[in-house]
Structures are given as structure tokens and as C-alpha cells.
């Protein structure tokens, strides 16, 4: 008995070590490419082309960052991305939270049909509609404007927004609204005065996820925006390969810059993001 427990604890110590080695390896593989590209962005051109490559930067420099921030196209692309992702997030949250509240709380007959329609969008290959959308957007004259991308992004982000918000709204205690209604509040008032403040954390999580979605979107922006004045970073940066042909440091710096807001969001809100992402998938 004693021997068994001793060998058991011995194995578990080894197991723990192996486990942490595994975890460390996993974390390293996940973040190593970012760290390496960051290294590429802060070294000199000579070091960049060194053979064999250096492991740690010899003499860090911000030249590459100077190059891209000195480029008006890059600054403009950052602003464009912020506008597109910001406006998309606000619109999505407005329509999404209203619809999600109805789905989570109110009783109506075609609920599952509505949910199926909305969810169908997340399985929908967006590329299948770029031809007709391009023709339609040109007819109404919004090609090369933010709106072409904002409208399309909104539609494809809405399922995510609604899905996560429904999960959050369902978790809120029902009694509070019932009490508000007994006190004479209408459905809309109950929603605005009771649910919205309580749901703020959930709404905030959803906002982060929607923002990331819109910030990362590439296909629509690359289809509808050919004018550099309106292009977001996702379109501008791949084009840098032709602008800064051999300036790989500048390309690396640009790539690192646009991912920094995302890395910060992830580090600050990882717990919320995970709960938002898995809310629908598991409970569904």
C-alpha cells in the first residue's frame, strides 16, 4: 500500500514536469512567430540579411518603424481600419442586442427559423456573393467608400454578435425584468433600464469580438476598396511587399504594428473572450 502510493507520487512528479514541458512548448510555438517577426522589425538591414541569421538582435533600431510611420499610406490605413471596425462594432451591437434580447427572452413561434437563418450566415461562404454585391454596390455608388465594407462586415458579424449576446442574456436573472414589468415598465423599458446595465460585461465582450472580426476582415475590403484612401491595414500591408520590395524590416514592422492592438486586447480580456467564444458552441 505504502509502496504503491510512493510510486504513484513519483510518477505524478514526473508527469507534472512533462506536463509543464508540454505546456511551455505549446505556448512557445504559439507566440514564437510573432516574437521572431518582431525581432526582424527592430534589427538593421545588414543583420536582417546575415547568414546564418542572428538569434537575438545585435543593436536594436527603430528605423523600420520610422519608415512605415513616415508613410502616409500606412497611417491612413490604420485610421481606415479603426473607422471601419469601430462603426461596424457599434452597428452590430445596436441591431444585435435588440434582436438577441427578443430571442433570449420573448416567446414567439418562428424563433428556431429565425435562429437558423441567422446562423446560416456563419456557415455561408462570403466569397460566393462578392460578384453580385460588387454590381449592386456600384449601382448605388458605394464602391471605394467605407460603407461598402461596413455594411457587408455587419451582416457577417451579426450572427456572432447575436449568438454570444443570446447566451449572455439567457444567464441574466429573469425575476428582475418581471419585477420591472409588474411595476409597469414596458418590454422596451425593461430592456433598457434593467437588462442593458446588467448585460454590460457581456455586451463589452461581444464588442471586443466583433471589433476583432471587423479589424481582421480582408476579402470584402480587398474586393470593394481599390482606392488607397479607404483601404484598411489588411489590404494595405500585403501590398507593401510590392512597395517596400526588399525592405523586409518595414514589412515586418507594419505587420507587428497592426497586431499590437489585438495582442493587448487578448492579454487584457482573455478570460472574457474565451467565455464569449465558447458560450454558443457548447451550450448550443
Amino acid at each position, binding site marked *: 500500500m505504502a509502496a504503491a502510493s510512493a510510486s504513484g507520487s513519483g510518477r505524478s512528479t514526473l508527469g507534472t514536469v512533462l506536463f509543464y514541458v508540454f*505546456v511551455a512548448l505549446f505556448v512557445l510555438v504559439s507566440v514564437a512567430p510573432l516574437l521572431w517577426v518582431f525581432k526582424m522589425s527592430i534589427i538593421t538591414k545588414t543583420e536582417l540579411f546575415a547568414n546564418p541569421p542572428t538569434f537575438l538582435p545585435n543593436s536594436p533600431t527603430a528605423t523600420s518603424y520610422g519608415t512605415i510611420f513616415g508613410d502616409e499610406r500606412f497611417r491612413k490605413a490604420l485610421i481606415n481600419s479603426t473607422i471601419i471596425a469601430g462603426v461596424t462594432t457599434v452597428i452590430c451591437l445596436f441591431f444585435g442586442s435588440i434582436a438577441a434580447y427578443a430571442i433570449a427572452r420573448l416567446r414567439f413561434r418562428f424563433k428556431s427559423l429565425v435562429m437558423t437563418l441567422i446562423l446560416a450566415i456563419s456557415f455561408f461562404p462570403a466569397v460566393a456573393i*462578392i460578384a453580385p454585391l460588387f454590381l449592386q454596390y456600384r449601382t448605388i455608388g458605394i464602391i471605394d467608400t467605407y460603407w461598402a465594407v461596413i455594411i457587408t462586415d455587419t451582416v457577417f458579424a451579426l450572427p456572432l454578435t447575436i449568438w454570444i449576446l443570446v447566451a449572455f442574456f439567457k444567464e441574466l436573472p429573469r425575476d428582475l425584468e418581471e419585477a420591472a414589468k409588474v411595476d409597469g415598465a414596458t418590454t422596451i423599458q425593461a430592456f433598457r433600464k434593467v437588462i442593458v446595465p446588467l448585460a454590460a460585461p457581456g455586451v463589452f465582450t461581444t464588442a471586443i469580438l466583433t471589433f476583432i472580426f471587423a479589424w481582421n476582415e480582408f476579402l470584402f475590403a480587398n474586393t470593394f476598396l481599390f482606392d488607397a484612401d479607404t483601404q484598411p491595414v*489588411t489590404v494595405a500591408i*500585403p501590398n507593401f*511587399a510590392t512597395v517596400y520590395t526588399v525592405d*523586409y524590416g518595414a514589412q*515586418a514592422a507594419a505587420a507587428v504594428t497592426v497586431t499590437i492592438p489585438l495582442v493587448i486586447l487578448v492579454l487584457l480580456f482573455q478570460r472574457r473572450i474565451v467565455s464569449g467564444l465558447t458560450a454558443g458552441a457548447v451550450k448550443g
Partner: protein
Amino acid sequence: MTTARGQSGQKKGRGLLREEFGNPERRTAYYMILPALLIILIVAFFPIAYSVYLSLFQANINGVGQFVGLENYVEMFQNDAFLRGLNNTVIFTVVSVFFEFIIGLGIALAINRAFRGRGLVRAAVLVPWAFPTVISAVMWRLMFQDQVGVINYVANAIGIISEPILSDRTLLLIAAIGVDVWKTTPFMALLLLAGLQTIPGDVYEAARVDGASVMQRFFRITLPLLKPAILVALLFRTLDSWRVYDLFWGMAGRELESLSTFVYTGVRISQLQFSVGNAAAVFIFITAFLIAIFFIKVLGMQTSTEE
């Protein structure tokens, strides 16, 4: 198809509609859903119908010409670029989803316990996921590059490649699969982990008491109970890979073809390929639909949205 079903439903249920809208709570519910639903119908469902219509006509970026029936589809299947794209997409989807699932499941099983530094792991997992795919592609392209790329250097040094990675289409496809596995395995692991955490611990306890081995517990308990989460994750990833565009475009421009890059090239770059590109778009839509049906009907994925 959707409208046809809607209409017949309406005829049958006129009394039902009146009843639905007569009830104030239900009426409010419909008004609340309507804006979101309308924009989805107008911007997503209507264009797909228009896309199908358009694929039966000779069309270009400036307008719609004469009716040609299925000619665009015939031309599409004779187009070498389309066939290469189809081939690449099938290989990419099968191989990358396979590896993402196996590795993702392994990781999920390993980290399905409380341990120190869990938050750090979760954050690290989310980093690749949060990146724009096209920017990840640019980053990896820099590492695959033949003058400054560390991966190309190492692969060359140990002698597993004879030419630069970025100038060989087969190597490019392998590289793209690697990048996709790097980027989406963590997400797969996260979904599966969430599924694992819904399996009550006493089920395992009972099995252990009954003398079930590790393997038996895995195949008889974990896999069956995890099946719903597995199917959802697999369907998501399969459909995502099937429409791969950002990754290929960001890594190789027009060098690496997929179904989606073929559509994009037709619609936005090559004036003469507009009709064929649009036919390929409809092809992607129909095949994606069939993949979803396969998961739901054949593999028995649950789709109910009520708990």
C-alpha cells in the same frame, strides 16, 4: 428556395400570423428582430439568389448579357486554373483540418485540469487566433522568404528543400497548411476543451471503479460525450478551410490558387473571367451547403438552437 418555403408557410398559417401579431409581446419580439433579419436577407440571401441567376448569363463587370444556360459551368470545369484551385482546396481542407483536430484534441485533453499559469496558456492560445489571417500570412511569408527567412534557412541547412519555399507551388501549399494549423489549432483546442469541461467527472470515476482502462475511458466515454463539440468544431473548420482566401493571397499572391482566389480573380481582376468566376462562386456555395448537410444528416450533428 427559402422564399418558396416561406410563402407556402404563410398560406397555411394566415390565422397563425394574425395570432402571432395580435399578441403584444410577440409583436414586440418580431419588431426587435426585424432590422437584423432584414439586413441579413438583403445583403446575404438576396445576393446568393442573384449570383445563381447571374451564373446563367454571359456577364462582365459592366453588365449582364445574354442567357447562356449552364455554359459558364461547362467552361469552369474545363478551366485549368479552376481545377488547380479545386485540387489545392481539397488537399488543404482535408490535411489541415485533420491535423488541427488531432493536435487540438491532444492539447485539450492535456490542459483539461486546473494548473498554475492557466491564464498565460489561454492568452498564448488566443494570440494566433486573434491575428488577421492575411497578416499572419505576411509574417510567415517573411520567415519563408529565401534571403531573410529563418525557416527557409533552417530547411536549407538541414537539406530538406532544394529550392526556395516561396518559388515552389507544392512547398507553398505545404507551408500554407502549416500556417493554418499554427493559426487555428489553438481555437480548435479551445472549443474541444469547453466541450470536455461539460463532461461530469463522476462518469470517469465510475468507469475507473469498474476497471476501465485509459483507452477504454477515452473511446467509450470521452469521444462519445464529446461528439457534439467535435462535430461543431470540425464543421466550422471544414467550411472555413473550404473558402480559404486570405491565407493563400497573403502568402503567395496569385501563385497559390484556391476556389476562392479563382472567384476573386474572375470578379475583380480578369475582365474576361467574370461569368466563370461567378459560376465558381455558386459552386463554392453549393458544395459548402452539401458539406453542412453531410455533417448534419450523415454524422448526426445536432442543430437545435433551443436547449
